[in-house]
């Protein structure tokens, strides 16, 4: 592997210069059987010494022991001593939509205006982003490119972290509409105390009413067979007819409860709450209405000074215990998303099992995003999108992703940062 990367490094540096990403993986077209690895299927099942058979970019078979006798024509590749995991799925992220955080010209995730249900992150997703290869290096193979800002930021798409262009990289286009639920509080500045203060948002009910109107109008309009030229309203059609997700980002428990009631009233088939939740009232609202939740990274400060020190670390176990469908996003800067496996792993010391932690960022995220028919676990018929590591990928102490495959094609795990490291290791004579 190291040789390959050096080779690529040489090729890249000679012909293309440093600024380019490595070439996109190609599927060999052969049937391949991978043996000898500890396989984490992603649904809780593990094979200590399993086999994984891949054909035409899909999983043909998976099981315990060496299955090569069953597939005599398959090319045999040994991953002895290694671990195989489903590719990690990173929901609600601006990776690929921005390059340098502070440089506005590189930012393409926040359109002007409050209601932008019509805009699509899909076409802004830049497969040539130099950040993308650094993220997939730790096993993240899918990202939900998601717009931000305003009341309705727009529509997301689920993208692979490898591809020649967005058309090539997309797994699910326009998978859902995003809604930033209004906040019950607004922040203001008190000039006498010189402190910012939170106040009740007097416009809360008004904004919620506007949302009701907007959804009602969209429903009315969708009854008409004719093509209508209101882009904002027709963008909701997929949500209203139960095909697309409605992702709702909500800040507090009361807002989450309101948002769930809203979805019920408008008969939204696939609502998803994105945020944190703490009260039993809000948790049971999620549970009773079968609404899944995507929670933020464990790596955040407790919500309040009085909150438990490890509140964020303990939340996943708390929600699993309540029987919710829980996924996890990396809510901090996109370039840090390579830490998603670790922030899931961090919940393990706080009540979650390793299998549950893994499921949060694989199968559960896939179910929540409606892509579990294709990815999320290593089951027969699903796409061959998986990673190989020398150690536990949830623990930075042991994680070392050596190979990654997307739809059966091996991904080149080189990236700009590795090349820079090589360059200076070479300068200093470090081996």
């Amino acid at each position, binding site marked *: 592997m190291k040789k390959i990367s050096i080779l690529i490094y040489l090729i890249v540096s000679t012909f293309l210069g440093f600024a380019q990403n490595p070439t996109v993986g190609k599927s060999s077209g052969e049937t391949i059987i991978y043996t000898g690895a500890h396989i984490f299927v992603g649904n809780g099942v593990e094979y200590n010494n399993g086999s994984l058979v891949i054909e035409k970019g899909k999983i043909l078979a998976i099981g315990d022991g060496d299955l090569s006798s069953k597939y005599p024509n398959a090319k045999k590749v040994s991953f002895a001593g290694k671990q195989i995991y489903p590719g990690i799925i990173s929901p609600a992220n601006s990776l690929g939509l921005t390059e340098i955080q502070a*440089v506005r010209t590189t930012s393409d995730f926040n359109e002007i205006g409050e209601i932008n249900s019509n805009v699509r992150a899909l076409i802004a997703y830049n497969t040539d982003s130099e950040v993308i290869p650094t993220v997939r290096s730790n096993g993240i193979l899918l990202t939900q490119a998601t717009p931000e800002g305003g009341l309705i930021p727009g529509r997301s798409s689920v993208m692979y972290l490898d591809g020649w262009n967005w058309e090539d990289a997309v797994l699910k286009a326009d998978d859902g509409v995003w809604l930033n639920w209004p906040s019950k509080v607004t922040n203001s500045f008190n*000039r006498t105390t010189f402190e910012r203060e*939170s106040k009740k948002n007097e416009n809360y009910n008004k904004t919620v009413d506007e949302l009701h109107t907007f959804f009602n109008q969209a429903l009315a309009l969708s009854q008409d067979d004719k093509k209508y030229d209101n882009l904002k309203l027709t963008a909701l059609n997929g949500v209203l007819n139960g095909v697309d997700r409605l992702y709702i980002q909500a800040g507090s428990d009361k807002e989450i409860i309101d948002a769930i009631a809203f979805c019920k009233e408008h008969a939204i088939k696939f609502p998803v709450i994105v945020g944190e939740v703490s*009260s039993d009232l809000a948790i049971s609202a999620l549970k009773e209405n079968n609404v899944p939740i995507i929670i933020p990274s464990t790596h955040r400060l407790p919500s309040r*000074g*009085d909150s438990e020190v490890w509140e964020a670390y303990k939340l996943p176990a708390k929600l699993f215990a309540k029987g919710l469908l829980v996924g996890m996003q990396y809510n901090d800067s996109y370039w840090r998303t390579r830490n998603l496996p670790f922030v899931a792993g961090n919940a393990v*010391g706080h009540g979650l099992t390793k299998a549950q932690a893994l499921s949060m960022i694989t199968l559960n995220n896939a179910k929540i995003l409606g892509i579990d028919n294709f990815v999320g676990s290593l089951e027969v018929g699903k796409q061959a999108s998986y990673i190989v590591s020398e150690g536990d990928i949830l623990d930075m102490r042991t994680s070392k992703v050596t190979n990654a495959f997307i739809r059966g094609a091996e991904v080149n795990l080189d990236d700009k940062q590795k090349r820079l*490291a090589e360059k200076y290791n070479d300068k200093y004579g*470090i081996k």
Partner: protein
Amino acid sequence: MRKNLSLLILFIICKFSAFSQETFHENGVKDKRPDYYLFKNATVHVDGKTTINEGWVLIKGDKIEKVGKNFDYPKTTQVMDMSGKHIYPGFVDIYSDYGMPEIKRKPGGGYYNMEFKSGKEGAFAWNQAIKPEVKADEIFKVDDKSAAELRKIGFGATVTHQKDGIARGNSALVSLNNTTENEVLLKSNVSSHFSFDKGSSIQSYPVSLMGSVALLRQAYYDAKWYTNGGIGSERNLSLEALAQNMALPAVFHGKSFLDAQRADKIGKEFGIKYILKSGGDDYKRISEIKELNTHIIAPISFPKALDVEDPLDAEIVSLTDLKNWEMAPSNLAVLAKNNISFSISPSDLVDKSQFFGNIQKAIKLRLDKNTALDALTSSPAKALKIDNLVGSIKNGMIANLLISNEEIFDPKAKILENWIQGNKFVINDLSLSSVKGTYSTDLSGFSKLEITGENEKPSIELFENDSTKVKATTTRDRNFLTINYKKGNAGLVRLSGYITDKKINGDGKDADGKSFVWNATLNEDSKTEDKKADSTKKSSEEKLGEIIYPFTAFGNKEKPSKEDFIIKNATIWTNEADGNIQGDVIIKNGKIDAIGKNLASAGLKVIDGTNKHLTNGIIDEHSHIALFSINEVESVSSEVRQEDVVNSEDINIYRQLAGGVTTSQLLHGSADCIGGQSAIIKLKWGESADKLIIPNSPKFIKFALGENVKRGNSPQVPNRYPSTRMGVEQVFTDAFTRAIAYKKEWATYNGAKVKTGLTAPRTDLELVALVEILDGKRNITCHSYVQSEINMLMKLADSLGFKINTFTHILEGYKVADKMKARNINGSTFSDWWAYKMEVKEAIPYNAAIMTKVGVNTAINSDDAEMARRLNQEAAKTMLYGGLSEAEAWKTVTLNPAKMLHLDERLGSIKKGKDADLVLWTDNPLSVYAKPEKTIIDGTIYFDLDKEAAKIEDLEIEKNRIIQKLLAEKSKGTPTVKPTARPRRDNIHCDAILEYDGVSVEQLDQFLENLNK
């Protein structure tokens, strides 16, 4: 003899006082009135300690002439019988801005559009917040509306000053009389006033609390220099005034007990004992306040009761706020109990009518009544040395007298009259006779009527018999009553009555318009109801919660204490040549005493370390927690000190203890090329701010390069120099050139054998810090990203003769590691940050490993309150990225930062004799699955996982207890306010700006713009 003397004094004062009126021309004939008044047979409260029963007070004009019993008085005296009444000295507020002009803030400098010059024209200080030349007597105007509010609650005089700026100028003693300024102004230049708040100054500097401290310190040094000869080089009225004011009592405005300690530290440097205006939270750290040994001006405003009926809303109320609501009213009693000299000021009380209610609350919480009286009269007067004029009832003093019907702090008491400078103000009408009681009446259809309610606003019920009654509407105008009522279905009956002694006589018109006469006679035995109220007053004494240290959630009821103990059978990460060993560690007297296998444990507390890992505490080289300020805004801000603004109450201290951190370098931010001086603290949760700081810790200072100092991310072109990396180099060159000259100037002065005729150089705090760097006494930690400028600073340091200790962030350290190695410069970096701005686009996570392999002493730091609680995980990433060994990885957050902070003699490894700063982990400390079970500092357990559950439960119980109390309060009808979430202190302070908890330069700019709107 004595009498003669006092008469003489009286004469002089009278003459002086009359002087003001004397000079005024009269339009008409002279109208001088007899001005002797005698108050007879009252209970005269001379002050809190002395009472004269059946006492007499004689006043003449605006002065008290005589106090005593049964003395002769001039024939022209107007005599008033005060039997049964109480006379008190008029209250004195020494922290007032009564009669001061309103302060209007003009738009000033923002972050990207700074204002460098003072908005005040004239020969004054360079900085607008330094205005000791302001004199209250010159700008004072009588404001009868405000005066009336204060008269109503018993005040007769205030010491007033303009509450604006850091050095605020002088106060004046004025009475609350409604006459002319000439009469009302009693004394000029009573005290000088200070604060940490720059107020209406439009100048950008200082933006931070620590900048305010530095500016004031510099002003004192400048004033000293000025009077010692500096006047020869510039004329400066502000410095002249500041020097003159040194003779006056100085009052410092603090918003909290932390401010009080901060002010005291400044005072000590300049030999000033500040009188401290407190934020009302002295009770939180009363022993530290007592140590200050000064007079406290305490507010009488208390936190409002919170509406906690909705449990989801109530979630956002913090334990600190709940406890403060409960305990703040006890502050005065706590001050008294600790024998701290204090006075009470109503200045913070927005609704002045709450004054007596609040005093009564304090008394209920065991504030002694006489102490309360002293705190409103003689104590404030003594504190500001005006006790010869106001604050007690003595011969020759200003005739400010307060007359009440009951003891003044009795809930039933009413102030009847407030005499100010011999001028009577009626507060509650003394002449109004009481009408309350049950009367028999000849009103047709009724046998009796009952009058209840307030004397001025009585309410009347008419009884047909004992069980059937009619409620009447009643108004009283002096001795006339107007009564209307309806009986049955008939129309309205109208009565008019005149009150005489025990009788009401009146006319009436019935529903048909027919006239009649009526009367009512008081039943003598009916005046009993008032007494009933007394018995209800004796409610059980209120029980308050316990003080916790710090005064926030997870605070300790008792400060944790040092123990001798043994940790047995753990995997010990020694960070020494032995590497990891299986064995025991003994801790004695805060130090590591022994390491080995099967050590004797007799007499020691035993902690089982089986299957656990014992390591050093984590040292965070780059932290901004526990601070009130992060950045000052001048390109060279070396004068500011993080040590001045350490916040012992920051919950992040506890959170990071729970992440295994024991020591943090609290750095200035990166807004300036040369930033402020670091504070290096141990996270001793519960100790006061000064005790967190490691004693005699090595001196450090923050430097910065790149986008932040050049304001690279400004939406417009910024106006502060420098705005390019070219300019950054020049700022450093200039600063050190000045420092070298300054050092020489002092050396010449100090070396001169004869100093007469020489002016000592001006102490320049900015350059003092730079000279320390030149002398090798202060170490540089420099915020840095790209190799070009890192190289520049190294070259500059070489040429100007100073050393760089640490490059922090140093994300391109891997490009210059050889150069750093050659100069023995340390590198303190992030594990995997990049791409957040242009200058980090070539940052790589392999940086730490490459620097380490080249031989640079390398640390991983947090610069972030969240990341700091899992620095062990960040260290582990150096194994993932670059393949460091476990031992090497672990040292990046322990031994290596100890070395770069020059603390490795004491910290950083498990070795006999070093500080017992240890963490016992549940797992391999580099694993994501590990968490600290015990965090120990100096042999004291500050975090204990085993006690965490109990702590959380205690927290819930305590919160619920106070919430129940609040609910009871609401159902009693006490007005409440809806709780609102207070944004985290970490990211709200106007000065907590950069790279910290997500608060960016942009947010700061917006913040300052709001501030100045």
